[in-house]
């Protein structure tokens, strides 16, 4: 089994790329791969807890919780997150907060890296 690390930059709402990343992470974890997700840029907004899933909008929270239950490591860029007015106390539980070197450290031990840049 391999290690897949994804850098996810697009926002939760308004970009299907975010949904793609979470679906791919789930599929890889289901197959027994180790998966790491790094949120940067607008994707960091998705770590805020208590998201209401309205069907016209993508949602992150319930999928992120499921992914972490499967062992997927999820980390948000602290600087990107606080710059958007979200504090650690408001975060979905078990999401890690760290600096950009977290992403590079996961890249170091990865077999594949998929960097999904923002639009």
């Amino acid at each position, binding site marked *: 089994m391999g290690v*897949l690390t994804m850098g996810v930059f697009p926002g939760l709402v308004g970009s299907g790329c975010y949904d793609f990343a979470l*679906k791919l992470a789930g599929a890889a974890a289901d*197959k027994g791969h180790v998966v790491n997700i790094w949120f940067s840029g607008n994707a960091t907004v998705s770590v805020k807890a208590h998201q209401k899933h309205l069907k016209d909008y993508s949602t992150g929270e319930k999928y992120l919780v499921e992914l972490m239950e499967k062992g997927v490591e999820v980390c948000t860029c602290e600087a990107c997150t606080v710059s958007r007015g979200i504090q650690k106390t408001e975060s979905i539980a078990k999401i890690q907060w760290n600096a950009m070197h977290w992403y590079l450290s996961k890249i170091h031990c990865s077999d*594949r890296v*998929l960097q999904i840049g923002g639009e």
Partner: protein
Amino acid sequence: MKLGVFVSDYKVTVETLDRMKGENLGIVLVQNGVYHAVLKEGGKESALLGKTPRLYALSEDLQTRGLSPEQVDKRVKIVDYSGLVDVIFNDFEKVAWL
């Protein structure tokens, strides 16, 4: 280098991809990129289809857009998310999202 390139747009230009040599390249069509596998603008297929023989399209993104497998160019292999994971690990040495 066996690089798998993810293409997620149709009209937005992927200039970098145009410049990359095709021999070691694969193309994975996701999101709006799946239109490359289906549309023939003015009767002409997407130039991406001639770039490499290693072409994939994500079934969930075809389905989302109302595109049936029968509409997809025969050179394109349709994979679901689970199949895409295998493509990432088995068919390429590295992957990149343009």
